[in-house]
């Protein structure tokens, strides 16, 4: 029954026009970035490397597909939560708004299973969105710009990763990025359980992300104790896979924090959804 219902949920997601907004948006955004880099890439790279050129001598093809993929991921990972929330925030509240929730919850299947089916379908959708972004960034990026060593500028300085050492880092990075987006999806589904309209949970999800991000970036001592526990602090943990050496402990902590948020959000969602009176 659970698998059948998850299949139902996937049919619904696949048939909704809004589900394709994310795919279209990613395609257009990545297309624009790749086009801009193809035209003005050398000037952009020179601007970034200018401060190093006095001490370092760059040889080879710096502007390659791997760098393009890294730039794209860095630019788009901020926008993807909105695209995910657009669909996952509607999963429960959309049914309430349409009135179909009455029919759905009067069937001989537990509310927990209904919610988990939707959640699973929402996660699959999130995975697909990330996969599409990965395909556009890595595959199309490499196809247009070729392979090469990846030059990453982070807070510790410049890290150069050889081309033959990059694939597993992208896979690891995508896995952490998926975990971060799964946290956003869980948050929006949880908020969706509290609402009877589609817009509320989407706006609320983005508000929570913005609020947590502001708290996380404000350099005020009062927030020092809570900052490490905010999921938004760990949403950029995918970048850790492009550090040398790999910060295993930091990655572990991010994974634990993100999983903890998923557990808390999902538990609240299940509890509330089971207790909720269906009045719509």
């Amino acid at each position, binding site marked *: 029954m659970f698998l059948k*219902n998850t299949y*139902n949920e996937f049919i619904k997601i696949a048939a909704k026009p809004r589900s394709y907004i994310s795919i279209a948006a990613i395609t257009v955004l990545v297309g624009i970035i790749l086009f801009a880099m193809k035209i003005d890439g050398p000037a952009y790279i020179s601007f970034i490397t200018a401060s190093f050129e006095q001490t370092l001598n760059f040889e080879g093809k710096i502007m390659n597909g791997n760098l393009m993929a890294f730039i794209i991921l860095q630019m788009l990972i901020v926008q993807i939560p909105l695209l995910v929330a657009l669909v996952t925030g509607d999963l429960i509240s959309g049914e309430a708004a349409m009135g179909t929730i009455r*029919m759905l919850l*009067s*069937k001989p*299947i537990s509310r927990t299973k209904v919610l988990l089916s939707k959640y699973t379908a929402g996660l699959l959708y999130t995975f697909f969105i990330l996969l599409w972004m990965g395909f556009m960034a890595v595959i199309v990026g490499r196809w247009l710009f070729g392979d090469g060593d990846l030059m990453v500028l982070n807070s510790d300085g410049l890290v150069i990763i050889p081309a033959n050492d990059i694939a597993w880092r992208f896979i690891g990075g995508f896995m952490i990025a998926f975990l971060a987006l799964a946290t956003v999806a869980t948050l929006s589904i949880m908020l969706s359980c509290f609402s009877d309209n589609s817009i509320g949970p989407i706006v609320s999800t983005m508000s929570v992300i913005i609020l947590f991000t502001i708290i996380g970036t404000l350099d005020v001592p009062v927030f020092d104790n809570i900052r490490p526990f905010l999921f938004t602090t760990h949403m950029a943990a995918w970048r850790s896979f492009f550090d040398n050496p790999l910060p295993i402990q930091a990655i572990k902590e991010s994974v634990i924090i993100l999983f903890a948020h998923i557990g808390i959000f999902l538990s609240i969602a299940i509890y509330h959804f089971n207790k909720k009176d269906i009045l719509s």
Partner: protein
Amino acid sequence: MESSIISISHLAKNYGSFQAVKDVNITVNKGDVYGILGPNGAGKSTTIRCMLSLINASAGSISLFGHDIKTHRKEALSKIGCIVEKPDFYKYLSAETNLAIFGRMAGADVSKKNLHKMLSFVGLEGREKDKVNGFSHGMKQRLGIAQTLLHNPDLIILDEPTTGLDPQGIIDIRNLILNLKNEFQKTIVLSSHILSEIELIANRMVIINKGITVVEGSVQALLNQEELLVLFEVTDSKAAVNSLTTYKNIHIIDPHHFEITISKNEIPECITRLQKADILVYGVETKRKLEDYFLKLTKA
């Protein structure tokens, strides 16, 4: 002996300090077409939602097919098909896909053959691939009934099934409900604010007012308790009234019509007495119906 498939006892539902349902008691037997009547806000829909576990009851017990809805929800709901308030579907999906989605959830056979059979039964053949977005309210109501039948449930619950339909739509749905009863031997529970619908379809009913069961029983028996206003069309109304002097509430309308307040059982006696007085009876029309009975009870 009739077997009860719905048993609701002292049901109550509170929303904060507001009591939507105070004390509702319902017993539905196998094979009944059971009407739930009550003015707007009486608690009919809340009662139906509690029955389907869409709303958690504050007090009382609900047993469906011998299963407590709180503890054996799945077993109880597996034998029920329902439409609550209005049939809402995924507008962006076809009629066939909508049926398949709800059918899968109920564990029904969702083969194209079965889906098309159900759509054909409710008069939607040829519209299988059409998106529900373009369906009229009547078509959605029929699709809703098809959805209730997919898993061959024993009990069908329809909340105000004729609301918002045009006269032809009302007749279609009424016939569909009667078909479910006569051809498929389903037990049907329906609420309606069109009281004549209940009188035409139901064999048993409950009247709920202000969240309380006012009366429950056989439609026929409840109506027979009441005196009817009967209009007679005769050859000579003055002579007719003279032959019925033992009746008190009688008055002449015109030379060929008179009205009399009597119980249903007294109508044959009246006709016999008129015939003995050589007065021909051309027509007998009972004017007091369920509406009057309902209004009398709910205004009390």
